[in-house]
């Protein structure tokens, strides 16, 4: 845990989430990046339990979350309401927002600047 923010990637598909992590790890090797992809049975969908467990498993107190489609957001919202962690859900383009954020976290850019920079990637809500 060398940065104060962790990143959680929530996708309907396990491979999308874990593949995206692979992409981000290349540019943000010191950022903790975790995934909650698919349902617990490995189907397409999202799992509140998986999201919650993954959130709790961060050493970091602050977690920035990215998601693919709106129904993932609802599970994320619920998990956020039930955790002690300081969670922020970003409504950016999933891959592009997560990529930019991870790059900037790696470079120790402050959160406010990151948010400003990714504000042009907000396409949801």
């Amino acid at each position, binding site marked *: 845990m060398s940065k104060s923010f962790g990143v959680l990637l929530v996708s309907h598909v396990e491979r999308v989430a874990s593949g995206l992590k692979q992409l981000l790890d290349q540019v943000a090797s010191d950022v903790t990046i975790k995934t909650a992809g698919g349902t617990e049975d490995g189907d397409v969908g999202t799992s509140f339990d998986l999201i919650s467990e993954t959130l709790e498993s961060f050493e970091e107190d602050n977690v920035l979350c990215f998601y693919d489609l*709106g129904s993932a957001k609802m599970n994320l919202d619920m998990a956020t309401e039930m955790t002690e962690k300081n969670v922020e859900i970003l409504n950016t383009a999933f891959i592009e927002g997560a990529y930019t954020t991870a790059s900037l976290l790696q470079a120790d850019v402050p959160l406010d600047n990151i948010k400003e920079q990714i504000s042009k990637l907000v396409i949801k809500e």
Partner: protein
Amino acid sequence: MAQTEKWIKSFEHFSKKITDEKSFLNELDSAIGDGDHGSNLTRGVAAVNEKLEQQSYDNLSDLFKDIGMVLVSKVGGASGPLYGSAFISMAKKSKESDDISSLLSSGLDGIIKRGKAETGEKTMVDVWAPAVDALKDGTLDQSVIDSALESTIDMKATKGRASYLGDRSIGHIDPGAQSSAYFFESLLEAGVTDE
């Protein structure tokens, strides 16, 4: 019959309808979504039934909370957190009231809080809202449910997956509205709404 038992009875009706109509719900969802609404809810109600068999309940709050959490955990689609939030919201409300229209009204609040949909956006809210209104007036019956359900056909979806289709979402029943219709029918059948 105690309210708790009536609610359990009602959930049994709901489970059966969902499970029997799984393919139909999937079909509705195929037209304007990803085709899993029936499968999602069938998985959810099966898990609830398992839970209810293991447990006995002497108050509505515990019952609703368990139903809600199991649905949230097991459904896997948008309808999981939505129905889940309805029950969790009802669990809170039932600590201060067991009035059926107050309960379902807070269930609706839970859905709206979670999904941010208003009426007219072609979602389950378009069945829940008129049904709750009718409950308040004491006029909830099958025809209220049917016409609420049918009203979703001409709507353009602006929330949920169907919203990606824009105008092409028009002309279809919303799958979540259909499952919600089953939900309110089950309440009527189990007599939950009789005071």
